[in-house]
């Protein structure tokens, strides 16, 4: 049974940490390449679990060509001013239905002329919202001829 007893004690050298910064930088660059900055501060209650679920979803490509319209109940701190009924948020402020036309025109103005036909409007709408407001938004988008839309939905598991 001396097999275990007389093992020679080897001293293990300290692990070199000089390449640790390189490793961490690599992780950092990976994240920088794969993620995008948070676009706007949400003022409506719209967690990602509040989006409807679907199976036939497609990825939104070319994020720089996407304009977002958020619809949902105002967050608690805005409810005294804006009530509890679902509201529209454009950029980082509450907006009226009539502001959508201007918003789309402004978004279009910001893009290069060659890219304008590929612009998409992403509708991020709380799943409990009534269709009335969504239908109104769709009519406004048609007036502004922003016809490519994307109903934001998450993957059904």
């Amino acid at each position, binding site marked *: 049974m001396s097999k275990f007893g007389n093992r020679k004690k080897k001293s293990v050298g300290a692990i070199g940490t000089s390449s640790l910064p390189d490793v961490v930088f690599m992780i950092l660059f990976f994240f920088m390449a794969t993620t995008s900055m948070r676009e706007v501060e949400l003022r409506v209650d719209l967690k990602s679990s509040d989006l409807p679920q679907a199976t036939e979803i497609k990825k939104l490509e070319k994020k720089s060509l996407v304009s977002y319209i958020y619809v949902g109940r105002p967050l608690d701190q805005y409810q005294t001013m804006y009530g509890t009924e679902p509201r529209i948020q454009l950029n980082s402020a509450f907006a009226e239905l009539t502001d959508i036309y201007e918003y789309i025109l402004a978004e279009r103005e910001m893009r290069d002329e060659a890219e304008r036909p590929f612009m998409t409007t992403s509708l991020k709408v709380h799943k409990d919202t*009534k269709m009335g407001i969504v239908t109104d938004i769709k009519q406004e988008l048609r007036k502004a001829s922003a016809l490519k839309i994307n109903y934001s939905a998450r993957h059904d598991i």
Partner: protein
Amino acid sequence: MAKRETPEVNSGSMADIAFLLLIYWLLTTTMDVDTGIARQLPPIPDKTDITEVDINKRNIFIVLINSENLLSVNGTTRKIEDLRDLTKEFVKSNPDDPSMPELESVYIDKLNKRIDVGKGVISLQNDRGTTYGTYIMVQNELVAAVNELRDEAAYEHFGKRNFEALDEDQKEAVRKIVPQRISEAEPKNIGGK
């Protein structure tokens, strides 16, 4: 003048700096990819060219969602779970069934032959009181039905396992064989608020 030796910069804290940057980035970015159902809205019709398009009754598949989120297909109440099969049945070409849409023979240059394609149009109507979640569920089922048929067509005509495996020209051909014609009615208010 004697050359002074520059001392080595201590790089021991480099890792800490990198970690700080990494954590800052993790907090300020969102990981989730934006996904959704892509749709094309119809342009607003000119006042001058509003024409009543006369579509044969058997060619329309009317899907109605009321303010109670109940679904009706061609006048009968249905469950959302059954919608996909009903839609597939409708979009598929049914040569011998007089209650299903008429056929139209379309020349597919990729296959160099004519194929009978159903002339059916899916008409989706909803109320202002319909919940958005239900509306998306119904949209999803309709798109899913068309996508399943396209997968089948891709297998039948090109021997590929699904639509996504085809190249652009073949996709175009399959799109002609299984068209996605979903029309949304001009909004109206039926069921009150």
